[in-house]
């Protein structure tokens, strides 16, 4: 059973991030000057050399960010044995106290078809074509509260939401040092909407009273996909998965645009570098032809058995009906990020101490991380970073590490933002204890051009 649980967990993660290549947020790479991934986080931050990324081989990675899914939040050692947080030996305060108010999970995947960057004079140009997936989920803490302290009361699960975007991104970016101490960069992105799913629940609650147990669910789900065909579906009709029908052809009609803007300022003779960027500030206008909006309404109640009829008095009603908003287009912002960083260099920029604030703005939430890093650049072609990400549920002991070999002709990147220093055992495996997020990425590309010092 235990193996099954762990296996399921891994599989879930794999499903979510399958196919990911380039991690959206490689916090550890932000201050790594040889990494071309950093431009994704701030168009003003350029690698030391131009590059050409090889499709498929340019990077493999997976990323799941949560603020709650770590071993130490769910497993406890009590009386010499390991128990789950739902064990009676673990008090409710102890278990629930470790969980945040809203459980958040996000998974970002980017599949890079092609990307490249090169310098032309002071201008650094870069372009690429990606398929990006952004998914996020918010879950109310009351889910665990119910399990742990199930009793009479009201459980509010309104903070549950699920969003996902898959879109194609074609970008052109440019970075230019407008001043000696100020570099600005931008990327213009043309977006092709592929799939948008947004499920929002404005009512999701449950109550348990001596008189009844009931729950309500109310929300909407927006689906926009190229295989959606609302033939014969009218508002009020029961939602039918037949709307996803390849026989109707694949229609790509949702387009949008986004922009990355960034800047880096150098102070104190380049000892202090302060940067800020907003990425993926844009929208996609999702086509009405491929839009299906369903109203979800559900309710259940259980009042007990009606002894008059010997029948349980319960009700369960769930409906998913086509909304009036179906077949009408809508414009939606894509998840954007705000990265603000500062690094102080010493030893002639061989060692830098950075602080990065990374905030992801999802539809349902904002997810912030604060990463402190120690960045080592002993050689022009070698970089390494040791980091620790805060405010994401990570505890002390979870470090990030990355290193990058960026010599002429080769760019090799390996990094993990969440490396736990404390592990527990599962059979022969060591399982991180504290880390609530996980990512790992590997990138392989070709450097072109000469070295540009930072």
């Amino acid at each position, binding site marked *: 059973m*235990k193996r099954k649980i762990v296996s399921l967990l891994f599989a879930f993660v794999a499903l979510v991030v399958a196919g990911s290549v380039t991690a959206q947020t490689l916090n550890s790479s932000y201050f790594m000057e040889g990494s071309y991934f950093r431009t994704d986080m701030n168009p003003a931050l350029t690698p030391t050399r131009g590059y050409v990324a090889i499709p498929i081989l340019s990077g493999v990675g997976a990323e799941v960010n949560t603020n709650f899914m770590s071993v130490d939040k769910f497993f406890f050692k009590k009386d010499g044995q390991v128990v789950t947080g739902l064990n009676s030996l673990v008090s409710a305060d102890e278990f629930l106290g470790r969980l945040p108010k809203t459980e958040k999970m996000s998974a970002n995947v980017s599949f890079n078809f092609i990307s490249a960057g090169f310098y032309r004079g002071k201008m650094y140009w870069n372009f690429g074509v990606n398929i990006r997936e952004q998914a996020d989920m918010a879950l109310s803490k009351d889910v665990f509260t119910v399990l742990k302290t*199930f009793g009479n009361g009201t459980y509010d699960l309104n903070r549950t939401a699920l969003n996902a975007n898959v879109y194609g991104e074609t970008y052109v970016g440019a970075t230019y040092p407008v001043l000696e101490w100020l570099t600005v960069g931008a990327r213009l992105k043309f977006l092709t909407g592929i799939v948008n799913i947004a499920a929002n629940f404005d009512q999701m609650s449950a109550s348990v009273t001596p008189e009844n147990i009931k729950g309500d669910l109310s929300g909407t789900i927006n689906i926009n996909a190229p295989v959606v065909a609302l033939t014969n579906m009218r508002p009020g009709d029961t939602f039918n998965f037949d709307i996803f029908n390849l026989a109707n052809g694949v229609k790509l009609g949702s387009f949008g645009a986004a922009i990355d803007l960034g800047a880096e300022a150098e102070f104190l003779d380049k000892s202090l570098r302060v940067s800020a960027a907003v990425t993926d500030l844009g929208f996609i206008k999702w086509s009405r032809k491929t839009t299906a909006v369903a109203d979800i309404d559900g309710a259940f109640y259980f009042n007990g058995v*009606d002894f008059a009829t010997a029948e349980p008095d319960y009700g369960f009603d769930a409906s998913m009906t086509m909304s009036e908003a179906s077949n009408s287009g809508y414009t939606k912002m894509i998840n954007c990020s705000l990265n603000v960083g500062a690094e102080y260099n010493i*030893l002639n920029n061989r060692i830098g101490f950075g602080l990065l604030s990374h905030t992801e703005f999802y539809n349902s939430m904002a997810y912030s991380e604060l990463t402190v890093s120690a960045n080592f650049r002993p050689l022009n072609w070698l970089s390494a970073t*040791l980091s620790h990400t805060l405010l994401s549920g990570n505890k002390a002991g979870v470090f990030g590490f990355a290193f990058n070999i960026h010599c002429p002709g080769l760019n090799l990147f390996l990094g993990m933002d969440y490396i736990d220093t404390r592990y527990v055992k599962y059979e022969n495996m060591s399982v991180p204890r504290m880390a609530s997020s996980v990512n790992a990425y590997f990138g392989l590309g070709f450097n072109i051009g000469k070295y540009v010092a930072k």
Partner: protein
Amino acid sequence: MKLQKLTIRIIAVLFAFSAVACVDKDFRLDEASMEMTLGQGKTIIPLGYLKEQTIGDLLNTGQAIEGLSIDPDTGEYSFSFKGDAASFGVEGIPTSLGIPAMVNSFSVAYPEFNLSAKSVEIHQGKEMKLNMGVLDKFGVSGSYRVPFKVENAITGNLTETITPEHLYVQVPEQIEDIVAVFFKDIESGHQGAPLHLKLDLNDLKGINGGGELNIDLKLAGGNFIMADGDGNRYDDNHFAKSYKIKEGDEFVEFVLYIDRIVNDKTLDSNHALDIPLSLTYDLDFSLDVMPGEFSLANLPKFNVDADLEYGDADVMLSKSVMLVDYHSTEANDVVIDSIPAEIVSVKSINLKDNSRIQLFARGLDWFGDAADLIEVDITLPGYLSLHSLEGVTYEYVESAHQLKATLADLEKGIDIGLDAIEFEGDGVRPEGGKLHLDFAPDIEVHFAKDAEIMVSSLMPESVENIVISTGIDAMEFTIESVSGCIAYGYDYSQKVQLGDLTGGMGLEINGEGLSPIIRIEIGNPLSLEATIGASITPMVGGEVRSENVISFDNLTIAPAEYVNGEIVPSKMYLVLADESRREEFEGGDYTFVACSVGKLLAGAMPDGLILDFSVDTNSEEVSTLYVAEEFELSYSYSLDVPLAFNSDLSIGYSGRAEGLKNTFELLSGYDIKIGDLALLVNAVNSAPLQFAINAQLLDANGEPTSINLHIPEGGGIIKGSDDGVKGAESQMRLELKVPSGDLSGLGDVDAINFDFELKGVTKDSVPLKDSQSVSVMLQLELDGGVTIDLGSFAGASRIE
């Protein structure tokens, strides 16, 4: 360079540090306990409910309870059982009465009717005064010869009155008056005495040349009816006629028949009829003379000769004279048998309409034609209550108990309506089922008033003594009623199956809080006041519970009525109930009988009753029993057990649910623990019953299991309402004691013993009504959550 090396080393160390890090080998996820406790606080969840439902709704939705009924006005419940109307036959009451023939015979002498009358003779001859006429011119004397014819030569006349003897008729006392005396020809015997009238021409016969004779005759003494020889009738005592004298005849002779004299005189003191008679005639003749010799020596002579012989008489019979005056001195004994022993004395036996007897009088047929004129007055025995029929010729004088009929009718036999056989005073007492009657009628035979008859018809050829029989033929009558002292008594017993009034629930009833009512409707088919007694004995499971019998006696039921020829049984409605309920029923149509009906239900609801009835009529007083072909004493009954409860009454039910081992065994395979579990029953109850429960879980050996139910002090009762109106709120708490919270012990449970007790709330009985209601909320209280080991569900056990 140094810096670079330093940096590389630092990186390497950090890398190595990071790679090795810290592995808590004691923290093994593969050995983690999958025991989870869901919910740790006190949780109360709903299990079920019963929204406010009236008792009426509850009972209507469930399986119908046979025998449960509801008063439409008050809504009060009761167990009711109604017995089908039944009846038993009352036998032995006679419906017919056979009266034997009642005949009384006696002999009487034939009365004398003969009239004696002397014949009245009339014999006279008188010479005619002649007027010779022309012959006078010849100075005829002596004899003379007339040479020639001379018309109307001679005339003569004569006027004479004859006074014969009186017609004297001696009349017997039976004859009141003579209407007419009929004469007869003494020679031929035919009716009508001839009065010979002859004109003898004597010495003139030689010269009779024809002529004419005229006579005018008058009789006196009465109204003579005469007839001449030609059959011409002459009334008014006057006869006048002309006769032709034929030439050469020597005489002219004719007869005048005197048929009768109609009497206008009364009988004298000797009871005789004395009629002076006289006959006056005026005669003249004229004679043609023809040649011949005549003489005047013998002048023509007119002769009158008659013998008025009594032939018959039309008489008025005397009503006052009894032809027969018979008073019985010895009565005949008439026996009516087959009188039931229950009829102690007979005051009267009333017969159906159209009952009639045929009275006859025989032996009087010699009266012949006089039969219609002869009246027979028969005074019948007083016990025969008669009435005359319509359209009859006889007369019944009820006051004299006398029948007046003609002899002619009696000879044929007359029907007279017989109403009843009645006796004076207190009636007569049958002996050995027989009723002895004396039949001694008085008979008076006399002529009817103004009876007029010919005496000859009263004169049979030879009659001396005659034997007369009067009486009544034997007849069978349909009895309408019998009056008298009647003592019918009946006992009747019946077993009644009530069935299980509690719907198979096998309730144990303690105390006498239930106050049942038994209603009995009895119909009395007898028109006799009767007293009724009854006893009712309950049966439970076939066992007769004699100790719980209830009874009553000496209740008087009114007699049945007799309306338009039909017996309408009287009805009596009895209510048997506790004395405390008297006020409810008094003043109505019911007769209230106080008795401890609750005894019938002591211990258990009966499933059968034995009903014993005894009915007795009052034999001390005279009453009238109307008779029918069949008598059915009908009765019906109902048993109502109003469901009204008081604190003296408790109804218990014990039950056992078995075969539960498989039900809970499923749980025993899993490692499931619970905290404290309690079943809460929150009730609002406006029924006047409190409900207590006790239960015990048993294993297959009948021993209590380790897991068992515990009811805290005062926690096992759902309260009832004091007044049946206001709802009582209460909470029943049943705690499941689970050692160590381990539910697997439930797998040992094979049976649940439970005892329910329903008890009234207050000392006063409060009825259960359909409007009372119960609402229940069943909740499960779990304190401490449910602990499950996921490993046990997956087939893997927790590694210890």
